[in-house]
């Protein structure tokens, strides 16, 4: 009980600082999610359209996805230094994999009869992609995006270790100053942020699936 009171006290006393950290965290996440989603979507579409590149591209994406986050951030230091850029680059490299995989799975999983009909009726490849494949794959693609968003918040918290800012800073400061209440306050805020983003994206996913009658 005493511990919780300390946590609440920290929130009350230092709310402007926490707001600033939330702002930084959201900024890092938004930039990296936008980049990872855009790059992942394009690569996913390309490997769905050109299957011979699927295996090597997925293998490369898998390698980035398998490296532990802290190791990836460390590996990027000699290339791009420390700070926000390092954190963003790490999240982007991580986030590409779920986007590529889900985009490719969503597009290639569409009923063959639907694509055959669209082709037979005279659609160009581009029209099939924009009018048929992407709308029908949007449920799976959005599930990948949710994954990237939650992952970006989790990985973004490590950014504080290389001076990237965000809520990880509260955790980091709590550890170095041996202040468990501060560590908890930062961690709890991160959990709330991740769950809120996931909930909002879940609602968007549900409404798009309803609109386009996809399961």
């Amino acid at each position, binding site marked *: 009980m005493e511990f919780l009171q300390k946590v609440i006290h920290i929130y009350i006393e230092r709310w402007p600082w926490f707001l600033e950290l939330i702002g930084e965290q959201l900024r890092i996440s938004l930039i990296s999610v936008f980049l990872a989603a855009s790059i992942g979507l394009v690569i996913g579409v390309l490997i769905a359209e050109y299957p011979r590149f699927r295996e090597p591209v997925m293998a490369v994406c898998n390698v980035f996805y398998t490296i532990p986050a802290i190791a990836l951030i460390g590996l990027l230091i000699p290339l791009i230094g420390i700070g926000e850029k390092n954190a963003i680059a790490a999240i982007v490299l991580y986030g590409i994999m779920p986007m590529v995989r889900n985009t490719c799975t969503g597009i290639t999983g569409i009923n063959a009869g639907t694509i055959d*009909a669209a082709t037979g*009726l005279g659609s160009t490849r581009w029209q099939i992609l924009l009018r048929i494949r992407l*709308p*029908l794959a949007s449920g799976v693609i959005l599930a990948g995006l949710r994954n990237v968003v939650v992952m970006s918040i989790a990985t973004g918290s490590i950014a504080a270790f290389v001076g990237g800012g965000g809520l990880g800073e509260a955790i980091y400061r709590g550890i170095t100053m041996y202040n468990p209440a501060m560590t908890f306050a930062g961690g709890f805020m991160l959990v709330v942020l991740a769950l809120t983003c996931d909930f909002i994206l879940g609602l968007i996913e549900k409404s798009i699936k309803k*609109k386009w009658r996809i399961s």
Partner: protein
Amino acid sequence: MEDAIRFEHVTVRYGVQTALDDFTIGIHEGEFLTIIGRSGCGKTTALRLINGLRTPDEGHVYVKGRDIADSDLISLRRSIGYAIQDVGLFPHMTVKDNVAYVPSLSGMWNKSEKDEKVRPLLEMVGLDPELMKRYPDELSGGQKQRVGIARALAAGPEILLMDEPFGAVDEITRRSLQSEIKQLQKRLHITIVFVTHDIHEAMLLGDRMLVMDSGKVLQLDRPETVREKPAAPFVKELLSRVGTET
């Protein structure tokens, strides 16, 4: 009578398998041609050659006198109606958007025209225009087939390709669809190439019927002639099923 479609010495192979072997036939303008044969006999391949979904390894396919190898395939496909067995309706589009698909691809109809253009098409295939705003998953099997036919006819094609279109509907709906497509063909005077595995359907609908086996033409004639003078043992075997199928 002039040929709307002509196959000349067409051979198609899938690996070592020959789907069509030196296939030569002509399909007349305004004719209802049914194609029947065992699974894998090449009937669907023949159909898919007409709209360029498959290209011949040897030989030529002519549509309205023009070799499709020299045609723009996108324009060719838009000028030919296409309806398939599992319908291939786009699940994320309403009935209206499905029917208006081809005209909207080629900019034939603008958005405001859609309602007035789709309405008579739905009526023509025996559907209530009120269904326009529904999605495919809200329709019965027979209604989906009708929407598929309306979509295939939307751009006013002179040729309609149908690949076992009534294969997935119940018997009563099937009979009713058969009679409606025959009437539609007479009314619109379009050329229909209709693939089926049902001999009863092939004889009922076809002005002529093509019996195929192993990528070859066994017989191409009027149903009465095929019945009276079957050209091969396989044709006889097929005909023995007439009357046993309801």
